[in-house]
C-alpha cells in the first residue's frame, strides 16, 4: 500500500567506506550527479522563466539567466496588474487571483489533513486498545476498503455532493476525505499496537481514564508517525486535481491546481503567457517545498513499508 512506516531506523552509519578511486565508483557518482541535475534543473528553469518577460523569452530562449529580470509574471499571477498591463505583457485577460486560490488550497488541505488524521487516530485507538464486540469484523471491513481505488468513488461521490448542495464549496471538496482513509486507520493502528502496554498501565494506575490516556499518552508517543502522516496527507490534498476539478466551478472554491490548469487553457492570441504561467506554477509548488523542508529528515527516513499481514 501507499506506504509509510512508523520506524525511524536510521541506516547503520558504521560502514567502513574505503575511499578508493575505481572507475566504477567514479561512473556511479557521475550517474548520481546526472540524476540530481535532471531532478533539480527543471525547478531552476521555471524560476528563470518566471523572472523573465514574455518578450525577452521569445527573443532569447536559451539564456541560462532570467531575460530582462522582472517580477511582472508574479504580479500577473497574483492579479496585481491592471487589464491593460496584462494584455501589453502577453498575459490573458482572465483575471485569475492566485491569492484567493492559495487561501482556498490552504483551507482545504488543512481541513483534510487535520480532521482525517485525528478521526483516523481515534478509530485506530479503538481498534488497537479498546475491548468491544465486533471489533475485528469492523476492522476487517475497513481493511476491505483498501481494495477500492479512490478514483472509483469519485463519480458517485460527486452525485452525492451535488445532492447535498455542496457543489462549488470548499466543504464539498474536503468532505469525502475528512473522516478517514482505510490506510490512515490501518497505519496508525499498527503503530498504537506497538506502544508498550506498561506505559498505559502506569497511567491507568494513576487513575487516568482511557480517553485521557489517548490524549495524554498515546497521541504524544505516536507524534512522529502522526506528523509524518499529516504532512504527507497535506501534500496529497494540496496536489489533488481531479476531485476539485469536478466539484468547483468558480473562484469561491477554486484551488491552486485547478486554477493553474485554467491559466494554462487561457492562451492569449500571441502565444502562451509562459512568464505568468511559470510564476503561478511556483506559487503553487513553493509551499509544499517549504513544508517538506521543515520535516524532510523525518519524512525521508520514514518512507518504507507497512506490509499488510
Amino acid at each position, binding site marked *: 500500500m501507499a506506504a509509510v512506516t512508523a*520506524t525511524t531506523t536510521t541506516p547503520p552509519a558504521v560502514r567502513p567506506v574505503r575511499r578508493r578511486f575505481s572507475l566504477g565508483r567514479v561512473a556511479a557518482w557521475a550517474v548520481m550527479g546526472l540524476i540530481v541535475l535532471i531532478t533539480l534543473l527543471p525547478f531552476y528553469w521555471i524560476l528563470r522563466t518566471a523572472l523573465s518577460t514574455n518578450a525577452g523569452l521569445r527573443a532569447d530562449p536559451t539564456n541560462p539567466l532570467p531575460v530582462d529580470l522582472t517580477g511582472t509574471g508574479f504580479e500577473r499571477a497574483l492579479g496585481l496588474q491592471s487589464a491593460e498591463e496584462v494584455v501589453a505583457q502577453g498575459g490573458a485577460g482572465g483575471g485569475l487571483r492566485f491569492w484567493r486560490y492559495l487561501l482556498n488550497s490552504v483551507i482545504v488541505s488543512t481541513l483534510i489533513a487535520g480532521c482525517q488524521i485525528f478521526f483516523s487516530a481515534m478509530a485506530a485507538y479503538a481498534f488497537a486498545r479498546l475491548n468491544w464486540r465486533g471489533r475485528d469484523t469492523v476492522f476487517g471491513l475497513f481493511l476491505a476498503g483498501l481494495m477500492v481505488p479512490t478514483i472509483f468513488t469519485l463519480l458517485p461521490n460527486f452525485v452525492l455532493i451535488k445532492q447535498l448542495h455542496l457543489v462549488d464549496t470548499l466543504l464539498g471538496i474536503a468532505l469525502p476525505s475528512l473522516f478517514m482513509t482505510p490506510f490512515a486507520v490501518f497505519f496508525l493502528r499498527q503503530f498504537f499496537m506497538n506502544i508498550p502496554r506498561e506505559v498505559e498501565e502506569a497511567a491507568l494506575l494513576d487513575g487516568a481514564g482511557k480517553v485521557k490516556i489517548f490524549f495524554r499518552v498515546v497521541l504524544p508517543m505516536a507524534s512522529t508517525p502522526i506528523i509524518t502522516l499529516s504532512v504527507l496527507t497535506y501534500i496529497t490534498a494540496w496536489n489533488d486535481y481531479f476531485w476539485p476539478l469536478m466539484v468547483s466551478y468558480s473562484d469561491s472554491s477554486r484551488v491552486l491546481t485547478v486554477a493553474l490548469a485554467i491559466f494554462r487553457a487561457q492562451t492569449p492570441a500571441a502565444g502562451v503567457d509562459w512568464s505568468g504561467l511559470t510564476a503561478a506554477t511556483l506559487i503553487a509548488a513553493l509551499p509544499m517545498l517549504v513544508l517538506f523542508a521543515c520535516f524532510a529528515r523525518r519524512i525521508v527516513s520514514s518512507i518504507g513499508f507497512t506490509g499488510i499481514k
Partner: protein
Amino acid sequence: MTVASSSPPSRLLRAKARPGGDGALAAVFVAPAMLGFLVFLLWPTLRGVYLSFTRFNLLTPAEWVGLDNYVRMVNDPIFWDSLKVTVEYVVINIGIQTVSALAIAVLLQRLTQSAVLRGIVLTPYLMSNVVAGLVWLWILDTQLGIGNEIISAVGLDRVPFLADETWAIPTIALINVWRHVGYTALLLFAGLQAIPNGMYEAAKVDGASEWRMFWRITMPLLRPVLAVVLIMTVIGSFQVFDTIAVTTAGGPANATNVLQYYIYGSAFGRFQFGYASAMSVALLVVLSAITVLQYRLTRAGQTDLG
C-alpha cells in the same frame, strides 16, 4: 515496524475493563471514521456499480437499463482504443520508472547513505501532477522550450513532443516518471535497508564485484518488495488523468485519450453518468485483478523472506 511489544497480554487492562468492554467509548471513537467509511466509501462503491446499470444525466432520476451500458462499451471502438492507449502508457511508464528507481535505490544504498540526496530525489514528488505537467510542457515546447532549443542546436529537427500522435504518450509517461521515480526509489531503498550489510561484506571478501553482488544478493532478496512496489505503482499508473488534462487534453486525435480521461469526458462533457460508471466498473475489475495478484505475490514474498 520492527519493535513489536513483547509484553504478554496485560491482565491489568483486562481486569480494569468493564464487563461489557469499552463498547460505549469505542462507539464514540469509531463513529466519525465509520460515518466517513459508510457515506463516502462503501455507499459510493455500491452506488457506482448500480449507476452502471442505469441511464443517468444528473438532472432526471437514474433509469434502469440493465446491461445496455456494458453492451455499448464492448461495441465502442473509442473505449477499446482508450484502453489500448492506457496500457501503452502503463507499460512505458512502469518499465522505465521501475528500472530507474531500482538504479537510484541501489546507488543510494551502495554509494552513499546521504539523507540530503534522498530528500533531493523526492522533491518532484512534492509537486502536483499539474505542476509537473506544466513544467515539462514549457521545457518541451516546440518553439521556445529549452529542450527543443538543445535538440535544434545539436542539428536535429525540433520534436513536437506533446502535439505528435507518436510522441505524446511516451512523453507523458516520462513526465510522470520524473515526478514519481524518487518516491518509488525510496520505497525500494527501504526494502534494501533490510538486507544485512554483512552479506555484502562477505561477498566483497570473496572478491565479488558490485555488479555480481547486485544480481546475486540484492535482486533475489529485494524481489518480494519489488513485486509489491510494482503492483502498487501499476495500479496508480492506470489512473493517469491530471498530466494529460493539462498537457494534451486527450489529443492529438485521441492519441492520449486514456481511460480515465474518456470516463471524465463521458460524465462531465456528455453527461452520460451511467456509461461513465460502467467504464469505471471495467477499470475497477482490471485493478482488482492486479490487487489479487498483489496479495498472491506478497504472500509468496513472505515465505521467501523467511
